[in-house]
């Protein structure tokens, strides 16, 4: 993908209007959008890896936000207590290995780039990336290089790597996949051979064949069909047996029954040399069914992999203070009430407690939905799970584990999940009636033929079962769901629960959370008030230059809005919790809190009515500018709301933030039904109220406080950068974080349901018309086989139309949605 002149060469985002960042790549100066992309591109060029830009087929992810956040947490991965969770030591105690998840892999060139770059590090034994799963296998010599250094090197070229618990599901999935592949291969090879002989036999019965030879062919067919029936089809027998034991008739029961009957009948025919053989039909039937199940399993694994990728082993570590103020890093689970902990800026508060020293602002947005950080000082309470923003805090732990606010929300979530209306059961019930009907019909046919002509009974019953063989029927729904799931995955929507697509298609109300969902969930530069002689551009340039060295979240927000070239700063000094100072062009500037930056004896008028977080830039004589920060609205939010309206879905906004802020957001994007200052249980109550009126509610949220309501809604979507808890309780995860994908997903799910209905009606139609013929003995086994295959193929092809839905692109720039296919739905 080539980048246009006005977009970043690295990530393809539009260039800032005033900024100028560039890197020389292969003798050409290429524009960059931000310092992050510039740093990443420079690192790639410096390591002689600029080939990456020739090989890649998609733009890289933007490095704007990734770098500072990544750097913060990486060092913790060297902690031996944490490493014990995911690092395996090989026979050589120095050599260690782990699995990493790489974020930001968009094309094969990314794999090439990261492999090249990391393999060249001294101490790395092996680094191999799996392009399909975006996982990397890493082996390194711990005496030469530290894990954090490797992770750091990966982030230098623009990817985010974090370790994953290798033991967990990876091995299980791998074994399951290998077993399914083996069964599929046996079925495939076996059915081909049997089919070849079957063609000879059919031709022979038409043109005449030597009896000896026909007999030989039958024996060979039996020989080859036996492993298919006994080995490949084993899962069907197991599933059928399980169904029978719990007295629930699933599709596997008639499948297993017809397989066994047809096989035994064919065996009998071969041994006694009379009657027909069905080996070709049953092997092909098994092969088709296994193929369908294999595809289904792969989609499920892929979803599982992606879900697992989000289970970052976020270091749940706390800094405990001993009596002599000695710091000790321990897992949060070892904390006890009464202990003192230190929380550095950017860290998560490990438990509920009271502040004993320090003064800072704390971001509780994930817990309460409150978008503006709250000021907290000595004696104030802080909630576990919130983030310390400004300066170090010391606190005494009051509650841990089950007693914390976080745990209370978790309990609310558990209850909501238990009470979740279960739809899947209903579908099973319907299927089981259908199966029962088929079995009863087969029994009736058997009885009738027993009276008419006992010798023919077995053959007719087998014919009935093969013809009514619920192959198409049992493929109809899963194949369509798999196709839709894959299609959604390509849009960046991960489906984690089976019922999600079905429920999404019936949605009447979409409820949004505000902080982190409709907005970005973190502070961004909102407005600047100039109070000195310098103009806006100069003030911004000064501020970003000063803040460059700071790890403070506001500094990062400032930097991400930087549009001008960096000024050189001399004598840069950071005062933790207060601000920064430095000399630029001979003048000493300060930036930070009002008390810190403001020159003494100078009064400064700050608009006290503004609630936003602010920092002040000043020179020794006067205040130059006040920067206000605010959580910004996602650009595409209004388009998403409009898209939902077009689909006839009602949109609501339920937030924990203050009513005034919620009102502002609701107006900005055109939501008419909104409420603010809601607790998690209020939100659940609101959704329940809607459900009692018979509405189907989809909830979209990101925070811990949204988790219960996400679980309560019939179907829910969590944001990709949202909290773990929210993602666990949601049915789908919006990895792309692009809100217009929500109406797209609803449109797609409606299409899917239509295709499922088409498939089911075809399958039922086929069965209903073929059954009487088979029951009367008109259908020979090969006819039944062809009919079964054709109807299965039709169902599969129909479902595959879903993966080729055209015109579902959502252009980023103007935020409009193209829903040509949705309009039809």
């Amino acid at each position, binding site marked *: 993908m080539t980048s246009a002149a006005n977009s970043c060469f690295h990530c393809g985002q539009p260039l800032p209007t005033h900024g100028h960042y560039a890197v020389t790549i292969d003798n050409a100066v290429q524009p960059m959008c931000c310092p992050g992309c510039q740093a990443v591109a420079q690192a790639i060029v410096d390591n002689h890896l600029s080939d990456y830009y020739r090989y890649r087929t998609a733009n890289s992810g933007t490095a704007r936000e990734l770098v500072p956040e990544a750097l913060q947490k990486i060092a913790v991965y060297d902690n031996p207590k944490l490493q014990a969770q995911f690092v395996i030591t090989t026979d050589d105690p120095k050599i260690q290995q782990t699995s990493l998840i790489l974020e930001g892999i968009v094309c094969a060139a990314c794999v090439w780039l990261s492999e090249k770059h990391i393999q060249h590090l001294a101490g790395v034994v092996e680094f191999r*990336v799996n*392009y399909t799963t975006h996982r990397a296998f890493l082996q390194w010599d711990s005496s030469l290089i530290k894990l954090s250094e490797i992770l750091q090197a990966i982030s230098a070229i623009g990817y985010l790597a974090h370790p994953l618990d290798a033991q967990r599901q990876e091995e299980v999935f*791998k074994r399951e996949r290998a077993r399914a592949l*083996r069964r599929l291969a046996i079925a495939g090879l076996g059915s081909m051979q049997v089919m070849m002989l079957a063609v000879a036999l059919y031709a022979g019965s038409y043109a005449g064949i030597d009896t000896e030879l026909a007999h030989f062919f039958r024996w060979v067919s039996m020989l*080859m069909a036996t492993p298919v029936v006994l080995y490949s089809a084993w899962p069907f027998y197991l599933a059928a047996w399980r169904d029978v034991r719990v007295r629930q008739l699933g599709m596997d029961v008639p499948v297993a029954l017809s397989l066994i009957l047809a096989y035994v009948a064919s065996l009998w025919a071969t041994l006694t040399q009379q009657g027909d053989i069905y080996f070709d039909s049953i092997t092909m039937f098994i092969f088709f069914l296994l193929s369908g199940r294999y595809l289904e399993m792969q989609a499920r694994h892929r979803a599982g992999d992606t879900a697992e990728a989000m289970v970052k082993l976020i270091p749940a570590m706390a800094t405990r203070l001993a009596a002599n103020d000695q710091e000790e890093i321990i897992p949060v689970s070892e904390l006890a009430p009464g202990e003192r902990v230190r929380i550095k800026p950017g860290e998560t508060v490990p438990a509920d407690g009271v502040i004993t020293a320090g003064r800072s602002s704390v971001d509780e947005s994930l817990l309460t939905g409150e978008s503006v950080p709250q000021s907290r000082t000595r004696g104030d309470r802080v909630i576990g799970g919130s983030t310390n923003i400004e300066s170090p805090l010391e606190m005494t732990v009051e509650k841990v584990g089950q007693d914390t606010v976080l745990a209370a929300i978790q309990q609310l979530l558990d209850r909501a999940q238990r009470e979740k209306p279960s739809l899947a059961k209903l579908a099973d019930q319907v299927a089981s009636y259908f199966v029962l009907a088929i079995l009863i019909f087969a029994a009736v046919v058997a009885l009738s033929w027993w009276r008419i002509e006992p010798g023919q009974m077995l053959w007719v019953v087998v014919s009935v079962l093969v013809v009514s063989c619920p192959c198409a029927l049992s493929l109809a729904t899963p194949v369509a769901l798999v196709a839709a799931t894959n299609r959604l995955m390509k849009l960046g929507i991960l489906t984690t629960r089976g019922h999600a697509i079905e429920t999404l298609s019936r949605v009447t109300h979409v409820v949004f959370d505000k902080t982190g969902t409709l907005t970005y969930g973190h502070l961004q530069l909102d407005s600047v008030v100039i109070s000195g002689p310098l103009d806006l551009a100069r003030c911004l340039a000064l501020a970003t230059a000063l803040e460059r060295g700071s790890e403070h979240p506001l500094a990062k927000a400032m930097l991400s809005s930087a549009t001008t070239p960096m000024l050189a700063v001399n004598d840069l000094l950071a005062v933790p919790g207060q601000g920064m100072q430095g000399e630029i062009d001979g003048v000493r500037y300060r930036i930070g809190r009002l008390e810190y930056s403001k020159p003494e004896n100078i009064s400064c008028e700050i608009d006290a009515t503004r609630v936003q977080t602010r920092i002040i830039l000043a020179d020794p004589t006067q205040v130059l500018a006040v920067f206000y920060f605010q959580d910004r609205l996602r650009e595409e939010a209004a388009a998403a709301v409009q898209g939902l309206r077009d689909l006839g879905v009602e949109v609501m906004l339920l937030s924990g933030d203050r009513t005034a802020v919620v009102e502002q957001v609701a107006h900005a994007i055109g939501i008419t039904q909104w409420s603010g200052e809601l607790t998690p249980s209020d939100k659940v109550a609101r959704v329940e109220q809607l459900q009692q009126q018979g509405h189907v509610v989809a909830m979209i949220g990101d925070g811990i406080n949204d988790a219960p309501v996400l679980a309560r809604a019939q179907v829910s979507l969590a944001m990709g950068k949202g909290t773990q808890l929210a993602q666990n309780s949601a049915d789908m995860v919006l990895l792309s974080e692009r809100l217009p994908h929500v109406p797209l997903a609803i449109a797609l799910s409606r299409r899917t349901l239509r295709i499922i209905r088409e498939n089911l009606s075809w399958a039922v139609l086929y069965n209903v018309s073929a059954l009487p013929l088979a029951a009367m003995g008109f259908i020979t086994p090969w006819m039944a086989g062809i009919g079964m295959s054709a109807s299965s193929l039709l169902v599969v092809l129909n479902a595959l139309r879903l993966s080729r839905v055209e015109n579902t692109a959502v252009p980023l720039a103007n935020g409009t949605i193209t829903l040509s296919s949705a309009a039809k739905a």
Partner: protein
Amino acid sequence: MTILYLLIPLGLILLGIAVWAFMWAVRSGQFEDMEGAAHRMLMDDDDPRVPHSQPSKPPLPRDDK
């Protein structure tokens, strides 16, 4: 047609070999990454005659330093 009595058992033996080869492929993880290998072979940057992997000019001085 008597030759079939020889050819079909021969076919069975070949089938056995095919099954064994497939089992080996599954066991050795050949199906783990179906996409990566196809791309990997195109990126043959180990050819010393290809010059563009070396920077021919120092990067432009950046104005933030």
